[in-house]
């Protein structure tokens, strides 16, 4: 027979963002448990509201399948004494298996006779298995946990009721002192306690009691209600999936309604209005057909349409002081100048161990200038970048950002324009925070992108310099995300910057600009390099590039991130070429021998007078004809190196590298080292797996 089982865990209101992941987790855990217990089922239906997580499991089997098992015991010679009597060992074994010596059979295992008992284990029936669910429920994990009353159980919120119904029958169990039964709770205010006769009735009974338990149905209803309001008023709505998801998990019986506010507040910047409505009150903003914000909003109540006017009035009243505050801040903030805000940054700490925000801006201005020059910015661009870098944190000291921290950068751009800064400068102020998340949007403007790199680079270098290096899950200043952001911006723009060794350029630039730091930028600079290389690896692992390709290209003497990115892509593009294996083998042969040469490559030169074979001259010409470092792209360099494969083969065929004559030997080693050093621009080709 196919059975249906209803499990409902009733809790005090869960946080909205926890509802969806939790029901998925419960689903997964219960499914795994049933599988482990060898109970089959057709499907599991999920229900979730802020006050409940419920599963309806259809097509459950009646019981676990029976199992026939042959259990191996002691060897025959131990089980029986010389007279053929059963020993204690044999008796003990059979007793342990719930059998007697009568049940013993002998079987041959690899030439030795052993005692065996045939066991028949009857499967437990499904109700018995379901009684094991309390452990499944209490082993759930949540982002924040709590205890309540005298209990020690840690859960998301206190458990207040449990429903456990197999068809029509209660499967009894208990969590703490809450007994599972057939009674659920309707809507907190509109509903009542509800007796469920059989599991299948769950959704409908709750529906009659003002709870829409199915998340998807509830969301659809909210959407329809909002759309209806929007259409009636000829508005457009800012659909925000995250907000819809949150609102959906704050209600059991949604009723959407529209409210309005005084038009005078529309003079505020859109970002401010949206933050006040959306982030603080979970309101949906509405616009006219030209996309202009209107002095209305839509919200969703957890209840029916009775007394809706009270609710509308109440919500409108809450919004007014917020908008009033915002308007006050907006006007007050415009009374000061950017210079005054910047001056205040001297008192705002970037980090105790590093410096104030003001000092950070001075450093970032120098770094931005170094980067800007590398990228051949025009004088105007350099001037704009310089201006932006000297003011870009100013909005942190405005009242608006003090109140609405999430508007940092956004208010900076708005105010900068009001204060007469150029558009490029204003935009860079907003864009320097980008990307805000691992996959977040990148800066659109060149100046914004350089400022974003400079700001992040300064953070990474200075935190590393004071030994605050991310480890494991400990990365409180999100330095990994920032480094990854830099790598993404560079990958996006294809910019050539010697980022991995930038300290050597920045330190003298700091000195020239009379910038003093209470930390040594050279400290942990090797770690900074590794840190960036790890982010590059992360980028390509994300793109499913072969590990050995990534390892080869990132084991490099390159400082230029773009070249490393290029190297990964170049190797990846050519790894399936016909001659790839041959070429790489030739080049890695050079690498392996060149390792024996311990002299610094910069001091090496090849003397043609010591050549004994024509292949040496050929090699000499070919290597010296390789384009100079920096005069070619990585992919050109790689292509050029690959053309050397036949020359290399011939060279190895004709010449004994470790010649007895020291001068000849050193001359040949020098030749190979110089070539090896060229290949190091691509990476360590020895890391490639060629088959």
């Amino acid at each position, binding site marked *: 027979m196919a059975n249906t089982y209803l499990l409902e865990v009733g809790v*005090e*209101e*869960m*946080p*909205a*963002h*926890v509802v969806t992941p939790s029901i998925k987790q419960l689903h997964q855990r219960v499914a795994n448990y049933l599988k482990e217990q060898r109970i089959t089922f057709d499907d599991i239906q999920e229900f979730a509201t*802020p006050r409940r997580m419920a599963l309806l499991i259809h097509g459950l089997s009646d019981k676990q399948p029976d199992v026939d098992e042959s259990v191996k015991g002691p060897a025959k010679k131990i089980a029986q004494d010389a007279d053929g009597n059963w020993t204690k060992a044999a008796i003990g074994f059979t007793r342990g298996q719930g059998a007697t010596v009568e049940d013993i059979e002998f079987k041959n295992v690899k030439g030795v006779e052993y005692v065996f008992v045939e066991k028949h284990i009857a499967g437990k029936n499904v109700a018995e298995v379901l009684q094991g669910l309390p452990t499944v429920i209490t082993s759930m994990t949540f982002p*924040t*946990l*709590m*205890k*309540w*009353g*005298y*209990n*020690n159980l840690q859960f998301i*919120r*206190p458990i*207040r009721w449990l429903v456990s119904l197999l068809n029509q029958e209660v499967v009894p169990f208990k969590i703490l002192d809450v007994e599972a039964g057939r009674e659920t709770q309707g809507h*907190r*205010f*509109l509903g009542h306690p509800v007796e469920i006769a059989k599991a299948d009735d769950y959704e409908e009974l709750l529906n009659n009691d003002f709870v829409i338990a199915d998340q998807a149905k509830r969301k659809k209803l909210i959407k329809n209600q909002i759309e209806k309001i929007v259409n009636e008023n000829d508005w457009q709505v800012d659909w925000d999936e995250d907000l819809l998801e949150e609102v959906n998990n*704050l*209600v059991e019986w949604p009723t959407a309604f529209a409210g309005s506010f005084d038009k005078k507040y529309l003079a505020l910047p859109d970002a401010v209005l949206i933050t006040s409505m959306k982030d603080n*009150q979970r309101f949906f903003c509405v616009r006219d057909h030209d996309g202009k914000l209107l002095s209305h909003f839509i*919200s969703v*109540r*957890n*209840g029916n349409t*009775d*007394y809706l006017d*009270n*609710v509308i*009035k*109440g*919500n409108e*009243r*809450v*919004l*007014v*002081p917020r908008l009033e505050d915002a308007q006050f801040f907006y006007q007050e903030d415009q009374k000061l100048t950017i210079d005054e805000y910047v001056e205040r940054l001297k*008192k*705002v*700490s970037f980090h*105790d161990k590093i410096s104030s925000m003001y000092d950070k801006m001075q450093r970032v201005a120098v770094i931005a200038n170094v980067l800007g020059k590398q990228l051949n910015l025009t004088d105007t661009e350099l001037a704009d970048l310089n201006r932006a870098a000297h003011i870009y944190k100013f909005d942190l000291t405005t009242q608006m950002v003090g109140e609405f921290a999430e508007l940092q950068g956004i208010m900076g751009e708005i105010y900068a324009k009001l204060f007469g800064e150029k558009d490029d400068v204003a935009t860079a102020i907003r864009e320097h925070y980008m990307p805000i998340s691992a996959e977040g949007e990148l800066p659109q403007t060149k100046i914004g992108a350089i400022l974003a790199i400079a700001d992040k680079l300064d953070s990474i270098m200075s935190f590393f310099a004071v030994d605050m290096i991310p480890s494991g899950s400990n990365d409180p200043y999100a330095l990994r995300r920032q480094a990854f952001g830099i790598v993404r911006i560079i990958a996006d723009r294809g910019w050539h910057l010697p980022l991995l060794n930038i300290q050597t350029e920045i330190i003298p630039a700091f000195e020239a600009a009379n910038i003093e730091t209470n930390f040594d930028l050279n400290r942990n600079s090797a770690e900074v390099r590794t840190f960036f290389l790890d982010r590059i690896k992360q980028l390509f692992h994300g793109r499913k590039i072969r590990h050995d390709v990534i390892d080869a290209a990132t084991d490099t003497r390159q400082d230029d991130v773009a070249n490393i990115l290029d190297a990964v892509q170049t190797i990846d593009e050519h790894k399936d070429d016909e001659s790839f294996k041959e070429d790489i083998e030739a080049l890695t042969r050079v690498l392996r021998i060149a390792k024996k040469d311990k002299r610094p490559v910069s001091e090496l030169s090849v003397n043609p007078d010591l050549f004994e074979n024509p292949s040496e001259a050929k090699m000499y010409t070919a290597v010296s004809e390789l384009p100079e470092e920096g005069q070619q792209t990585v992919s050109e360099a790689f292509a050029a190196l690959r053309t050397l494969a036949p020359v290399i083969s011939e060279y190895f065929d004709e010449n004994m590298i470790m010649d007895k004559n020291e001068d000849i030997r050193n001359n040949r080693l020098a030749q190979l080292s110089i070539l090896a050093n060229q290949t190091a621009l691509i990476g360590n080709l020895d890391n490639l797996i060629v088959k």
Partner: protein
Amino acid sequence: MTNKLTVQDIIFTLEQYWADQGCMLMQAYDNEKGAGTMSPYTFLRAIGPEPWNVAYVEPSRRPADGRYGENPNRLYQHHQFQVLMKPSPDNIQELYLGSLKELGIDPLEHDIRFVEDNWENPSMGCAGVGWEVWLDGMEVTQFTYFQVVGELPMSPVAAEVTYGLERLAEYIQNVDSVYDLEWADGVLYGDIFQEPEYEHSKYAFEESNQDMLLQDFNDYEKEAKRLIKLGLVHPAYDYVLKCSHTFNLLDARGAVSVTERAGYLHRIRIMAKSIAKAFVEERRKRGFPLIHDEAVRQKTVEEYTEKAEKAKERAAKKAAKKAQKEDK
């Protein structure tokens, strides 16, 4: 809500209601503090195994929030109605909703929601899990299951319900400015508080004597630490409250940099932590008299005594080790 409740009616109603639910009515504690939680009737009594059910009004001073009596919603001093129930009753949410009904707020005529808002007071080593309660979108109550107080994990857990009295009264009386609230028949909130709001703001932002306050903070801290060593928990705690308020005054004056801020909060936390521990110890010595079931009381005292002795042994061993090291 036809006959508008005055602020004092609201207080009476809440007092009567929570007294009926078994809460003792206490009075505001006579030391400046930033929140009702910092009253010893919450901070200290939440700690330890003894049951405790209490309700009281607490005037709460937040110097940085002062607005010279000009902003309709921000105050140097506001009033909290504080309820603490330990252990947290299973029906604490329903009890709370019952109090709203007593105030004439029928949930069917409004939209009431429990929206996640976990609470933390790092300077007192406190953290809890709970909600802000929304009444038609307005936050009127903070609802918290304490998990840690003075860095001690709670057992049993106390539930705290904190009503923002001004907010709630504004809603009930349907006024937009706190100064228009009717405190008692014919007397407005503004009549009572507008002048002190102005003067306290003027003092906190412009006139406070920073040197004196800095000195005070150091003196209070020293005194608190001395008293903790003597096992004088309550006087020590009074000085921690004074430290906290002194810090808030310095902060409002802008006399504390971001860096120093963390330092001050850390100093307060260290004291709060040792007071929390000392409080449990003093209650143990008194035999946890608020546990009325004699068998449970004895068992609890035994458990805590065992723990205390083990801790003593550990401390002695540590001290001996240290002494040995110093000998070498």
